[in-house]
Structures are given as structure tokens and as C-alpha cells.
């Protein structure tokens, strides 16, 4: 199994407050890693460290995050974020832009101006995000007129348009209804053929359904990391078992 991201001894701070403590995880390529743990355990911070967003909110980081062997903690954050796209809990399409422009936005910011090529990428991205059939006749309408589930898939299409290698998802379905959630989960399953995906979720069933590997964080520490099947059937540690059984957290 090829490793896409190798996180070594990662410590993350907000001021003096250490929110991630010596976390080391190898994230395999074209697999889905689910990060689980109770609120405040550092799941979202971990995700934000992976694309240098943690620094945007005033945090600092120690340790290394190797993406294909290159330490991204020493790279230009803008370049890093092109390679690691992020989907947030709440769908956040650009409210003043059309569906088409929402998807094309990242391309324009990255200097792509060829209209034909842009249109092709927009269509491909919307197809990959399983949204094309629903919006192909209304590409010029505002993105915020879409349903919550469609907006989230629009955001995924926007992320895919800039052709990242890794997709980071921070509770991407927690604000969606069951049907939309299923669509996002099906999409994750499809996307992992081409992308490496890291998903933070509070939903244990979702983690078990969509991921290949699961990491359990507790109070900033990585407690257990293993194949999802193992974590949800017979984890090594009682603490993990108690958490996935809903005994605490």
C-alpha cells in the first residue's frame, strides 16, 4: 500500500494550548481515512493541519506532514491547498456566483482563462460530484438556490475542479438529510478511486460505512489507528471499544 501522507510527531497549538500531541499516521493513497473522537479531541485541527489551515486561525504546528515525501509544513500554503482540497461541514457556495462560476472559481484564481477548457473542467467536476444531471440545465442560476445536499456536492465539484490529490472533509454530511447523506457517501466511495480522502465525522455509522481506515483521537492523542473493520469489530484498546460502542464521549 502506497502512503500518500505521512504524518510524524505532529503537535498543534493554539497559543500555549497543545491540541494535538505527537500524532503519527500514515495515510494510504486512494483510501478513505476517517477521524473519529469526541468533541474537542483535535479531529478538525488535525484536518486543518493537513492543508495549513490551522495557521490561518492563529495556530502553530510542530512535526512533519510529508505529502508524497515532501514536507508540506515548509511549503507555500497556497500551493499546499491546491493539492489538498477541503470540504466543510456547512455547504458554502459563493452566494453571488452562478453554479458554473462556483465550480470555475478556483480555476480562475489559478490563472485558467480558456473558456472551452474551463467549461470542460466544470462539466467533468460536476459529473464527478454526481451533480451534473441535476444542474446541467441551470448552470447560470445561483448556487444558493440549490438544496443543502446539492450545495455540498457543488462545493465538492468546486474542490475537484482544481484537481487536488487529497480531499479533506470536515463532517461533510452532518447538516444534510439522509438521502443527501447517502449521495455524499456514495460519492466518497467513487472519489477514492482517484483521490485520497480524509474525513472527520461524529457519525460512527458513517465512519464505518465509508472509510477503509479509522483513527480514534482523544484529548489530542491518537489512541488507535487501524483498518475500519478492525476498529468497529474488535479494536485493540478498551478505550476505543468504549467510544465506538457509545459508552463515552
Amino acid at each position: 500500500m502506497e502512503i500518500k501522507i505521512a504524518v510524524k510527531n505532529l503537535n498543534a497549538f493554539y497559543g500555549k494550548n497543545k491540541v494535538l500531541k505527537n500524532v503519527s499516521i500514515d495515510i494510504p493513497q486512494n483510501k478513505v481515512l476517517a477521524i473519529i473522537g469526541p468533541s474537542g479531541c483535535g479531529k478538525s485541527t488535525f484536518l486543518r493541519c493537513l492543508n495549513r489551515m490551522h495557521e490561518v486561525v492563529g495556530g502553530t504546528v510542530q512535526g512533519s506532514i510529508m505529502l508524497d515525501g515532501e514536507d508540506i509544513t515548509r511549503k507555500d500554503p497556497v500551493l499546499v491547498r491546491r493539492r489538498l482540497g477541503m470540504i466543510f461541514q456547512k455547504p458554502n457556495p459563493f452566494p453571488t456566483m452562478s453554479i458554473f462560476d462556483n465550480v470555475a472559481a478556483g480555476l480562475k484564481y489559478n490563472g485558467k482563462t480558456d473558456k472551452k477548457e474551463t467549461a470542460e473542467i466544470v462539466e467533468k467536476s460536476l459529473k464527478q460530484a454526481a451533480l451534473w444531471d441535476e444542474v446541467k440545465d441551470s448552470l447560470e442560476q445561483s448556487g444558493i438556490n440549490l438544496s443543502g445536499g446539492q450545495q455540498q456536492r457543488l462545493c465538492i465539484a468546486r474542490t475537484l475542479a482544481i484537481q487536488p490529490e487529497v480531499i479533506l472533509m470536515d463532517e461533510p454530511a452532518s447538516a444534510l438529510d439522509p438521502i443527501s447523506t447517502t449521495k455524499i457517501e456514495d460519492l466518497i466511495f467513487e472519489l477514492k478511486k482517484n483521490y485520497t480522502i480524509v474525513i472527520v465525522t461524529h457519525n460512527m455509522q458513517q465512519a464505518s460505512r465509508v472509510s477503509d481506515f479509522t483513527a480514534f483521537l482523544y484529548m489530542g492523542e491518537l489512541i488507535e489507528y487501524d483498518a475500519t473493520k478492525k476498529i468497529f469489530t474488535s479494536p485493540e484498546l478498551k478505550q476505543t471499544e468504549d467510544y465506538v460502542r457509545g459508552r463515552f464521549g
Partner: protein
Amino acid sequence: MQEHFSQEIENLKTNLIQMASLVDEQAEKAIKALETGDIELCKGIKSKDVDVDIFDNKIQSQCENILALFQPVTIDLRFVIAVMMINTQLERCGDISVNIARRVKKTAGAREIIKESQIIQMANSAKEMLKLSIDCFIHSSIDTANSILIKDAEVDSLNKQIFKFLVQKMKTDANLVEDCAHLIVLARNIERLADHATNIAENIIFYLEANIVAHKMKFQKRNIDEDF
């Protein structure tokens, strides 16, 4: 929610224990009848089977509800799976007890052959295995479960000896064919009773240790990789 879930699991366990008690009583009576020749003991075994069947459906429905409503994982999931499988085993044990009782009545006149053939010894071993399997479910005892697996080989060996003995009897005296044929089926039923007790023990090992031990010996003999 957690308390609600624990209550559902507790109810499930209680129902399975009640069902197991009924089956144990059925098997106990049928084997006592075989041992003593007192066919009066066979009365009521069949009618009790309906109560066992009611528990069978009730437990299956409870398991379905727990899986649908609580989506248990790890040891909780294994518990529900084990209960579903044990439920099936116990229901079969109930049916087998009815079959044993039926054969005991039919072979009431063959006391001498029964005594000579070691069927009683085999039946007591099977009965003991069933009791132990119920006991190890109640007390979550892995040691007891493992001891049942060993006993199964003894019952299988006795079954083979009994079969040979009965075939020999049939060869020597044609008048014994009918009785011996019934006794071969009876022995087969008893052997199945022991098999089900063994399966229950295997289910309990799966529940407690997340380890599937069924068919292990067979796989090892044939070098079958178990990395499913």
C-alpha cells in the same frame, strides 16, 4: 439512549436464557426416558416445543430491532449475532428432543440393546454438553466453552462405535433390524444434539473473543487460509 440499549440487550439475554431452560428441560426429559425406559416422561415434550418456537421468533424479532435501531458495534454486535445463531441452535435442539422422544417410544421394547450399545452414555454426554453450553452463555465462560469443543469429539467417537454395534446386531438377527434402525436414527439425533451444543460454544467464543473457531480443524487439515 445507552441505558435503553442496555435494557434491550438485557431483555434479549433473559429471553434466550428462558428459551434455553425450556430446551434443556425437553432434552433432559427425553434422555431420562431413554435411560429409564419410562415413556411417560416423553409426554409434553412435543407440546413444549411450541413454546420454544415462540421464543425463537420473539428473539429473532428482538435481534432485528436492536440491529435496526441501535446499530451496535464490537462486542455488542457480536453479542446480537451470537444470540441469533444460538437461538437457531436451541430451536433445533428442541426439535431434536422431540425426535428423540419419538424414537424412545418406538424402541421401548429394545431395552437390552439400548443398554449394551452405549447410547445412554452418549446421550448423557450430549445432555451434559447442552447444559454446559447454556451455562457458559449465562456466565460468559470461555473455559467452559472450550471444554465443550473437546467433548464433541468423544460423542462423535461413541456414535461411530454405536453404529458399528447396531449394524452388527442387525446382521446377526433379522428380527432386530427395526429396533436397530430406530436406534441408529436415535443415536444420530443425539450426535446432532451434541453438535448444536458445540455450535453454541463456538458462538460464545466468537462473542467473547471475536474469534471464529468453527471449522478451524478442517481448515487447518486442508491448509485453507482463513484470512477472510
